[in-house]
Structure formats: C-alpha cells, structure tokens
C-alpha cells in the first residue's frame, strides 16, 4: 500500500485489491485437521509459545469457514479421498500448506504400500514445509510466506472460471 500523507486532509491512495488483500491476510483461518504426528506440532504451534493467533490465524472445525488447510501428517490412500473432499468443501480463495516430509513426498513411509507419496498428487500446494516434524517456528515461517502470497494476489481482476482452473 502506498500512503500519500497530506497534513490538511488525511487520505490514502491505494488499489482496492491491496486493501482487500491486506484485510484478508490479517485473518487467515485454518481448518483444524490433524492426520498424524505433525498435528501435534501444529497444536503446539497454536499454543502459548509460538502463538499463531497473533497473525490472526485461528483454527476452525469446519471446512466451510476455512481459508487454508494444513496437511499435517501422512496422507494414506484410504484417507486421500476424504482429504480431497474436505478440500473441495472449502470456499474460494483457498490455500494449502503441506507440513512435514510425509505430505511433501511420502517421507519415511515412501516404501509403504498404503501411503500416498505426496499430497500434491491430489491437491495444489502453496507452501511446503520440510521437516519430520517441522518445528512450530517453521510453521510460523510458512504462514508468513503465505501472507506474502496473499498480499500479492490480483484477486479482483480474475474471472471466477480462472480461479477455479487455478485451484
């Protein structure tokens, strides 16, 4: 945002996009959805020490109120269909953070017969966080990156069909 500050008349010039994005990035709500070990670190990240609330990041229990989703854990093939369904239930615009090596690539369990090797096979990922599990600080960093991404988006200038295609 660019501020043109004039002493006599307080006003600011900016684009609608930027104002909208500024408000959007200040209240990113995530879907509380833990799959495995990483979910504990996600919980811990919401806890007192690395308080995620200060970024306006609050957990919601239903996908319909969520802006983004943490894929925190190992996506197995039995679960994959359900994750996809949850993702589909989230309203646009929506983002996904893949947390931990399991959901990035399959990680430790790549050799297993029942593990989907990488969640990006079924949904688009915005930020990958490496680690097994990533520390809460890494998660905070991921959210900062996501905030940057949200700020840069030319959200209003897109057709709806474009958005859907992108997602």
């Amino acid at each position, binding site marked *: 945002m660019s501020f043109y500050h004039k002493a006599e008349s307080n006003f600011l010039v900016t684009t609608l996009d930027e104002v909208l994005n500024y408000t959007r990035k200040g209240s990113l709500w995530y879907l509380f959805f833990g799959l495995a070990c990483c979910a504990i670190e996600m919980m811990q990240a919401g806890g007192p020490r690395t308080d995620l609330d200060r970024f306006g990041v609050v957990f919601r229990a239903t996908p319909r109120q969520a802006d983004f989703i943490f894929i925190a854990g190992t996506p197995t*093939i*039995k679960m*994959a*269909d359900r994750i996809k369904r949850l993702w589909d239930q989230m309203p646009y615009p929506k983002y996904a953070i893949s947390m931990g090596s399991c959901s990035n*690539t*399959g990680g430790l369990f*790549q050799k297993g*017969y*029942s593990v*989907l*090797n*990488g969640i990006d*096979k*079924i949904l688009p990922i915005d930020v990958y966080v490496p680690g097994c599990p990533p520390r809460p600080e890494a998660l905070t960093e991921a959210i900062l990156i996501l905030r940057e991404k949200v700020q840069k988006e030319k959200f209003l200038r897109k057709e709806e069909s474009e958005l859907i295609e992108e997602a």
Partner: protein
Amino acid sequence: MKPSELLNVIEAEFGDFILESSDQGFDPYIVVEPDALRDVSFFLRDDERMKFDFLRTSLGTDKIDFIESLFVLYSYELKHQLIVKVELSHKNPEVDTVSDIWKAANWYERESYDLLGINYKDHPDLRRLMMPHDWVGHPLLKDYKSPKKYHGMDLYRFNPVLKVTKKKAKKKK
C-alpha cells in the same frame, strides 16, 4: 505355574492334538492342530490351572511353507504366559475363530484376515480392518506386490536420491 508343568498339563489333556511344544525359547509355546484350536482355547480359558483370561495379542505370519496364526495368552491371576500357534496351509488358510472365547480376538482376527488373508470360520464380522474395502490382495504376504494405481491416484513417486545411489551401486559393481 512353571512353563514345563504348564505344558505337561496341556499335553496330558490333549495329547495328539498338540503337534509341538517347547519351553526352551523365550516364552513357552504350543502348536495346535487347527481343528482342535477351539477345544484347547476353551480349556485354556476355563480350567482352574490355566485361567488364561487375557489375550495379549494375536498375529499372523507368512512363513513361506505355511501361514502361522498365533495367540499370546496371559493370566492376570496366575501370572503365566503361553503362546498358542496354529499352522495353516497357503492354499486354504482357514481356522475356527476364537473371537467368542476372547472378545479381544475379534479385531486381531480381522486384522489378520485383512493383511494375510487368514479366513476365520464363523467370525461374526470378518471384514477388512485396515485397508479400504475394495483393496485387492493381502499386503503382509511375502510375495505381495503393491499396486501402481488406486482410484486413479498414481502411487509412484520419482525419487532422485534413490536413483543416484542406485547408479553408484551399479558403478561399484
């Protein structure tokens, strides 16, 4: 009761149905004729000298020549442990259920059915436990090959590290 006494009592009771018994290993175990499993189980649970009321765990193993299903039993009161094994053929791995004798066996048997294909006769609810219901094959068998695709999802992932190490291994040879 000491392991050797325990085995003596069981052998005296069932004789021919006990194919093998030993207390030389870590835990005493008996191998039972599949047809006699239920009778032996009832005896182990109800007899005054046995009182095996706690089914610790149960599992199946693929031993190439045969499939083994085993039950680890423990008695809270008398504090002794026994492993009961049955050996089943690969072609027709079928044995009577013990899920009405120890209720804990219900899920263990479902698990063994799912992962090894052991068919427990008269089990009240023999469905797959871990894998999706439309899964093909039993993963813990030694000759199992995992599928490349499931529900349109590609299960293979290219692993550059693995490729490099494989190349190196080839060069070394």
